[in-house]
């Protein structure tokens, strides 16, 4: 394995695992499409950042996008909690509003300028080794790689330290309140983590990988286990194997790396689904068992 292959696989694995861990909570809270929502709603952030700075440099775009990513998740929580709108509907309400504001700003003030997430924000995994930093003469990997490690550690720490609280808040918010836990604080904390890691990961590896890995590994793990702790570990493992396997699929096919990683994750989901159907006939896939009720607090 060359160093450049290692950089890509390592960065992608860290981001994939981070997304898979956060994805478990999102899937259980029926907010799995959060990643997709953020990928759209950063558009006004990009547009405003451009109009203010007159530049399309990465860090300016990242600043605007992060601000709007966090704003999106906070607003989605607000709409869901205050206006008593369903989770999926509140995601839909907020991100379509933001995206359309972005489209309007661009068509009104920057019509002739090539300005969208795809060309100014989303990174490309192929380019990661080319962005390597140098320690003297020695290439030591890109900034994105170190960012990914820091984010993974941050998310891991948050989950390990606050596991019980996050668990109670996710499965039974009412019970959590009765225990004196501030549910909304924990939700906001989780959502801020989601938005921050999502936007930073977009900048490093593009949108497809992030959106897919927030949903697919955790959904596959959800089919295989009934305990949150096992679900988190399984999702992380599936994410890791998808990232590594996907890279070699891309190598073999000479195709898009993020696309191949996502495909492998999809295959893992299929395998999880089939094995769950074939081996574990005791849990039939009925409506009662597909919701959060299938997993209890252990």
């Amino acid at each position: 394995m060359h160093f450049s292959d290692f950089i890509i696989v390592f960065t992608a694995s860290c981001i994939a695992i981070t997304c898979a861990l956060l994805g478990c909570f999102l899937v259980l809270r029926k907010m799995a499409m959060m990643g997709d929502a953020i990928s759209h709603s950063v558009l006004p952030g990009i547009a405003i950042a451009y109009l203010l700075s007159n530049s399309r440099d990465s860090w300016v775009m990242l600043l605007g996008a992060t601000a709007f990513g966090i704003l999106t998740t906070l607003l989605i929580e607000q709409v869901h909690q205050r206006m008593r709108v369903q989770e999926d509907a509140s995601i839909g309400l907020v991100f379509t509003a933001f995206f359309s504001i972005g489209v309007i700003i661009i068509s009104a003030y920057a019509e002739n300028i090539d300005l969208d997430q795809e060309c100014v924000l989303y990174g490309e995994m192929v380019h990661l080794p080319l962005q390597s930093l140098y320690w003297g003469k020695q290439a030591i990997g890109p900034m994105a790689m170190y960012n990914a490690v820091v984010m993974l550690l941050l998310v891991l720490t948050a989950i390990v330290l606050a596991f019980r609280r996050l668990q109670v808040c996710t499965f039974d918010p009412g019970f959590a309140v009765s225990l004196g836990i501030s549910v909304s604080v924990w939700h906001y904390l989780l959502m801020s983590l989601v938005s921050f890691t999502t936007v930073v990961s977009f900048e490093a590896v593009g949108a497809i990988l992030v959106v897919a890995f927030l949903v697919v590994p955790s959904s596959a793990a959800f089919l295989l286990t009934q305990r949150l702790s096992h679900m988190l570990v399984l999702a992380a493992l599936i994410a890791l194997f998808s990232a590594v396997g996907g890279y070699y699929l891309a190598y073999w096919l000479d195709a898009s790396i993020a696309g191949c990683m996502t495909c492998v994750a999809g295959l893992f989901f299929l395998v999880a689904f089939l094995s769950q159907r074939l081996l574990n006939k005791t849990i039939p896939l009925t409506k009662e068992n597909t919701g959060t009720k299938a997993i209890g607090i252990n």
Partner: protein
Amino acid sequence: MKWPKIFIWCSVWLAFMSACTQAQEKKERLMVVCTTGMLADAVQQITGPDAEVIALMGPGVDPHLYKATQGDLQKLQDADIIVYNGLHLEGKMSEVLEALSAHKTVIAASDGIDPSSLRMLGAKVSDPHIWFDVKLWSKAVAHLAKQLSQADTLHRADYLQRHQMYQRELLALDSLVRTSLSAIPPPQRVLITAHDAFGYFGAAYQMEVRGLQGLSTVSDYGLNDVTTLVDFIVERKINAIFTETSVSDKSIQAVLQGCNSKGHQVKLGGSLYSDAMGATGTPEGTYSGMVKKNVETIVNALL
């Protein structure tokens, strides 16, 4: 779930995967990797058989929608020289390549062009489609030749000689475009396309250019854009409008129908090459072939 088992599987998987890497081959010729086909053609004209020239974006690939593949990494790493257009044509990749120039020979073709002759679209943003004004492009080519001959001193004389010949060809091409287009009467000299990639072309050859879409292939056209364009076509009695090879022609079809419903017959003038060249091996697979084909299409449709 048994943890030792999982870890064993993990390590087997990783070990298997890391065994799948290939040994690198040694290369003899200079390897130049270019982003677009137009650049690859220009570089090939200069280097001739002395270098291996590769384009990352193949025929018909829109630079705005280009997705890198795993193999592109190997090409970029093996490259002795990387050539890109610049002016943000390659999106975020331009930034990556610019940073890479600290460690590798990286040439931006647009650096050869005097900033004052660039079309400004925003305060600090200029139009990246520099290749349809042949004179302007020849300046970018001259910059490439200069940089290439500095990077490959062994073939310096050959490069400069081939470049001289190519400059003459471009000069002839420029006057060919000028004379061909001058056959169209001035009021009819209007080029209407889906995507605003012909700004420099219009400015250089006195063609009025109207596009439906903004510069980015992703930005959508507004309702007003279609109506304004339809009114313009009907008023000026324009014969033909054009589609483009690398952009969908949906929007231009809307204009076509709009004009026909107002009783003005406007025909589809044909397809123009805009962001990418034709298939390799065909005449349109080279820069000059592509320009000639475009001019031929335009003259045939508007005359």
